[in-house]
Each structure stands twice: as structure tokens, then as C-alpha cells.
């Protein structure tokens, strides 16, 4: 019985692996990998690794493959080897044993893995986010800044981009504007725009 299951699982795992490499469409390659992973989970079960098999199906075939499908949609030893295995003791590979080992002997690796997951999550967010500055979608900002407004009245636009405001004012009024630390200079009637309402420059 276990031989039959082994050969079915092994053959479908190898066929799935060949499909990943040979299929042209990446979506079919991902589905082929899902087949491969499920067959591998069956092999893990035959090796008495119940928890690893469950994690394989849940983490890999579930979460990671969904991630793949989304992205596809978006982009487009020297000693004698005991070949029969050690004697099987009840509870081998069960979640209790694995959990106990994780929280005692392999605690450091466990914590390291959680840190690695956190770093990868942050890295993915940093890599995949939109970068406003690098794309050509600041037309809205230019439209807002091109509207005439009184100079040196402490608007937010001046606060975030005085240079841009000055350039826009220069364009819209044809005069030469210079940023001066002296507030009296900015109140100079020659330098202030003609459209400026009275009293706002003071």
C-alpha cells in the first residue's frame, strides 16, 4: 500500500517539477508547482512527518501559491545508511513534539525565523510601494501651484516648496522674484505682484 502511494506521489512530484520548468505560461507553471507541493506533502506523510506535511499544504500550497498567483495576475554520511528507517515511535513528528522542540532545543532558530519573516515583510512593502517622486503624476501639484496667490502670506504651499511657488509666481507675473530674509523687502511694491490684495503682504 505504501509503495503504491509512494510511486504515485513521487511520479506526480517529478511531473509537477518538470511542468514548472517546461510550461510557457507562468500561471500554468504555478499550478504545476501546487501539484508538486501537494505530492511532496504526501511523501512527507509517508515519512511520518505529519506536522511538516500540514505546514507544507497550509503555508506553501495555500499562502505562498496564492501570492504567486496574484503576482502572475499582476505582471503577467560516511556511516552505514539505515535504509529502512529508525523504529517508529508513537508521536514522532506530531505537532506536540515539534512544538516542544521549537520552544526548547531550537528556540534560537525559531526566534531568528520570526525576525526574518518580519524583515521580509517590511522589505516587500518597501520594494512594492508606490514612489510618488519617481513617477510623472505631479500634474496635480503643478495645477495647484499655478493658481495665483498672494506672496509671503505663509501658505502651506510656500512652506513645503517656496522655490516652486516663486517659480510659478515668476511665470504668472513675468517679474523677477527673489527669496529674501528681510520681510520689508517682500513688501516692496516693485517686487510684490499687482494682483496681491492690500494688507496681506504686511
Amino acid at each position, binding site marked *: 500500500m505504501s509503495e503504491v502511494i509512494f*510511486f504515485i506521489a513521487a511520479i506526480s512530484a517529478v511531473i509537477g517539477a*518538470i511542468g514548472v520548468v517546461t510550461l510557457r505560461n507562468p500561471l500554468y507553471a504555478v499550478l504545476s508547482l501546487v501539484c508538486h507541493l501537494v505530492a511532496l506533502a504526501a511523501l512527507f506523510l509517508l515519512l511520518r512527518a505529519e506536522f*511538516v506535511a500540514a505546514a507544507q499544504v497550509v503555508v506553501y500550497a495555500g499562502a505562498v501559491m496564492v501570492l504567486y498567483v496574484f503576482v502572475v495576475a*499582476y505582471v503577467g554520511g560516511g556511516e552505514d545508511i539505515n535504509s529502512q528507517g*529508525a523504529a517508529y515511535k508513537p508521536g514522532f*513528528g506530531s505537532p506536540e513534539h515539534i512544538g516542544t522542540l521549537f520552544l526548547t532545543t531550537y528556540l534560537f532558530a525559531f526566534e531568528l525565523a520570526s525576525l526574518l519573516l518580519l524583515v521580509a*515583510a517590511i522589505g516587500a512593502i518597501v*520594494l512594492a510601494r508606490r514612489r510618488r517622486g519617481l513617477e510623472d503624476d505631479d500634474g496635480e501639484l503643478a495645477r495647484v501651484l499655478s493658481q495665483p496667490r498672494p506672496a509671503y502670506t505663509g501658505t502651506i504651499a510656500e512652506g513645503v516648496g517656496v522655490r516652486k511657488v516663486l517659480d510659478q509666481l515668476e511665470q504668472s507675473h513675468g517679474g523677477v522674484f527673489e527669496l529674501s530674509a528681510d520681510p520689508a523687502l517682500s513688501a516692496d511694491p516693485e517686487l510684490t505682484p499687482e494682483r496681491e490684495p492690500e494688507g496681506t503682504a504686511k
Partner: protein
Amino acid sequence: VTLGWYLAVSVLIFCIGAGGVLVRRNPLVILLCLELMLNAGNLALVTFARMHGSEAGQIFALIVMVVAACEVTVGLGLLVAISRRNLPVDVDQLHELNG
């Protein structure tokens, strides 16, 4: 079925994955082939765990799964960033970092 068969399957899957990484040019398929290689390693680890009757190999396999998940997260993030800039999804054309 002796445990040697499991190791043979593991070696076969690893070779298929390594060949895919070398042959294919789509970065997505290259990531999939990396998954194949990591899974072949997992199968070997679980087989050795069975061989020696110790669960340490299974723990290692689970850690490898975590590492694979991280690798996928970062790799797919890079892929999304590539496609957002309308760069070609082809590792032969993404040669800006060539020395």
C-alpha cells in the same frame, strides 16, 4: 520502499529545479524553480529525520519553509517593482547591475 528512493526523488527534483534556474529567463519562473530546489532539500531533510529517528531534520525543514516564504516575499516584491516601472520581465535584459 527503502529510504533511498526518497533521496532519489529529492535529487531528481533538485536537478530539475537547478536546470530551470539556468534555462528559464522569466524571473517568476526562476523563483518557482528556486522553490523546487528548496523543496527537494526539504524532502531530503525529512528523509534523514526518518532515517535517524530524530525530529531535528523536520525542524530544519520547517525553518527552510520560513526562509522560502521570506525569499518569495522579497522576490515577488522586486517583481512588482519591476513591472511597475515597465521594465522588461526578462533576466537577460535586466543587466543594469552587470559589472
